[in-house]
């Protein structure tokens, strides 16, 4: 087609458009969309570059939450990528300084809202380390923590796949991911009474024991999860479109990861098998057999493969933990630390067990005083500071806890992996296409609740 073929509309001198303003002049050449000269229009003149700064987000369906990406683009090429964060800052660390150690769990659980059990666990492990009672946590409580954390890893990775898929247009991946996550959330609801923000792991143990059918329900769900996870994996793993969108995208090698402090699936996608569950075991992870999943592609596709593989490993750990689960207490024996009541999950939700209410209200005055003191004042934690780190779905989740010897944390700081990992956006995206920014950010899987705290 030559330019001669382009059809120009001859503009009427008197416009028939009743809504056109007086300055809306339609004289001159009008380019039809179907015309053949689009190439000559879109190509920028020689030696001239058009730089645009685009704000993507914070309200945008494909930026993985309230993340603001400030992109400088030349055509379709991203020349600079910066992140704007803080839109979900809620002052959790400041608030925790005004609450007792036990109350702090309800704040910590709300940070990385896709991995609440990890937030609770790292905070409680820090308190227990400072109290010096790490060895006294009952075996059953520790095993329950492992079960909940690994189930949580599955639900978190499923959201990573689901939202990542959605952002790249793979809507079936999203429906699959959220459907499977629902299976895990139903287990959470059965055990803790809540689907998220559980506040289930408490200093000294866990809030309540499994319900009577808890173990059986988990056992029944595992085979279903295994089949369904396989379906999700099969949907994407050899999918040409998925590979085209993720292979070689968001490249970050080991050197970059170490310099930027990247941990989790991004680090393991460089082939480096660093996993705190193996290198610095906590909660008895040394007793479980599982593999550290790695890939050597350094890209978004490798991170996707790792998440698929880690979900399978988590199921393995859950199965072993269920086998290890022995009857026993789920809260530390030390009455000066242990929460005085056991919670029970009734038809009307979570609450104190009726047995405990009967004891403190009508049988033992001392039990009532003890309950009142521990609930209103809380326990004292010796002065000092600790740093605990666990392997969350996104990498090293750390808790720096400073106690002044009082009943409240003097300072709590969480080293959230999303916060650190987001720093790699510039390294991953600059020089690439703007569409690949979405794939790269999705492969980082940041959760803004954890980033901003």
């Amino acid at each position, binding site marked *: 087609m030559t330019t001669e073929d382009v059809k120009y509309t001859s503009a009427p001198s008197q416009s028939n458009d009743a809504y056109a303003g007086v300055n809306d002049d339609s004289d001159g050449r009008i380019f039809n969309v179907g015309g053949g000269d689009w190439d000559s229009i879109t190509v920028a003149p020689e030696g001239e570059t058009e730089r645009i700064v685009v704000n993507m987000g914070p309200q945008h369906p494909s930026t993985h939450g309230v993340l603001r990406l400030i992109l400088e683009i030349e055509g379709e090429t991203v020349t600079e990528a910066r992140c704007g*964060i*803080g839109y979900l*800052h809620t*002052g959790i*660390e*400041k*608030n925790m*300084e*005004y*609450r007792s150690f036990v109350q702090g769990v309800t704040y910590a659980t709300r940070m990385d809202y896709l991995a609440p059990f990890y937030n609770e666990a790292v905070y409680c492990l820090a308190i227990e*380390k*400072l109290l*010096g009672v790490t060895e006294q946590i009952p075996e059953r409580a520790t095993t329950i923590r492992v079960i909940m954390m690994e189930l949580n890893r599955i639900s978190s990775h499923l959201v990573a796949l689901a939202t990542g898929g959605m952002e790249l247009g793979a809507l079936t991946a999203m429906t699959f991911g959220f459907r499977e996550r629902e299976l895990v959330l139903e287990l959470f609801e059965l055990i803790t009474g809540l689907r998220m923000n559980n506040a289930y792991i408490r200093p000294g143990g866990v809030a309540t024991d499994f319900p009577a059918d808890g173990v059986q329900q988990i056992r029944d769900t595992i085979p279903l999860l295994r089949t369904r996870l396989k379906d999700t994996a099969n949907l994407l793993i050899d999918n040409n479109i998925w590979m085209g969108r993720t292979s070689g995208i968001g490249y970050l090698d080991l050197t970059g990861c*170490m*310099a*930027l*402090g*990247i*941990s989790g699936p991004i680090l393991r996608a460089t082939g480096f098998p*660093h996993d705190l569950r193996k*290198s*610095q075991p906590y909660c008895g992870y040394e007793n479980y057999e599982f593999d550290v999943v790695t890939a050597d592609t350094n890209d978004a596709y490798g991170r996707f493969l790792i998440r698929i593989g880690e979900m399978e490993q988590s199921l393995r750990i859950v199965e072993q933990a269920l086998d290890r689960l022995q009857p026993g207490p789920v809260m530390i024996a030390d009455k000066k630390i242990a929460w005085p009541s056991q919670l029970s999950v009734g038809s009307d939700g979570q609450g104190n067990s009726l047995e405990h209410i009967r004891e403190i209200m009508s049988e033992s005055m001392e039990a009532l005083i003890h309950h009142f003191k521990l609930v*209103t*004042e*809380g326990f004292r934690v010796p*002065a*000092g*500071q*600790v*740093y605990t*780190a666990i392997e969350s779905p996104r990498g*090293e989740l*750390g808790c*720096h806890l*400073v106690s*002044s*010897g*009082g*009943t*409240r944390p*003097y*300072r709590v*700081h969480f*080293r959230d992996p999303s*916060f*650190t990992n*987001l*720093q790699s956006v510039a390294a991953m995206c600059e020089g690439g296409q703007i569409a690949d920014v979405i794939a790269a950010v999705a492969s980082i899987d940041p959760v803004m609740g954890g980033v*901003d*705290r």
Partner: protein
Amino acid sequence: MTETPAVPVSVPVVPVPVVPDGVSQFEVFHVREGAFGAQGSGDTSGFGGLVELMHMPEPTLRPYGGWFDEVADELELSLTARGIDPSSAIEKVVVDSDEISFFIRRDLLVGVLSALRDEPGLRFEFSSGVSGVHYPNDLHREFHAVYHLLSITHNRRIRVEVTAPVGDPHIPSSVGVYPTNDWHERETFDLFGIVFDGHPVLTRILMPDDWPGHPQRKDYPLGGIPVEYKGATIPPPDQRRSYNS
């Protein structure tokens, strides 16, 4: 480490009124008086005369135990090799809760971090970021910047702590050694007002750009409004009657 100087060399020595002699290296929280926190109602419990100095664990002398001594030896050797005097760079060492903390003089921080990262016997190649702590009663050392370093090679974790007075809240930036500390230092600046000299763009990161003050400081109020519920008014959390902290 044999002897540690009492305070950073650059800071004038001023007697601290609440702290007994010989403990000026403690991070003092406060002096707790009485048992329960009730004030002005007379001493009905008999515990009202209790006075307790609340402070962080005291400095540890050698041997530190386990691999802590190896790290300390290696650090001292490598600092000497780099022309830094270890006894002046390391203010004190604290071993507590199975963790070792090195308190570093602030103007020597970058050199110490480089040694920690590069020395084959140390190899702390992974930084877990910077955390700030504000100790208003730790006079002339009010701000602490706390660095947690992980050596994946040797599977060890240490803490490096640097202090700065509130009147001169400057600490050299560690971004050149650990680029990951970029956002962490911005966060610590944002929330505490510690200025990291040499940081490429030290701007606020969590709070809005025009926010006044630094929210994580102890003298910054939590905020909040009284809430009325069924006729009773509940004050905001930081103004409620509470137990001794």
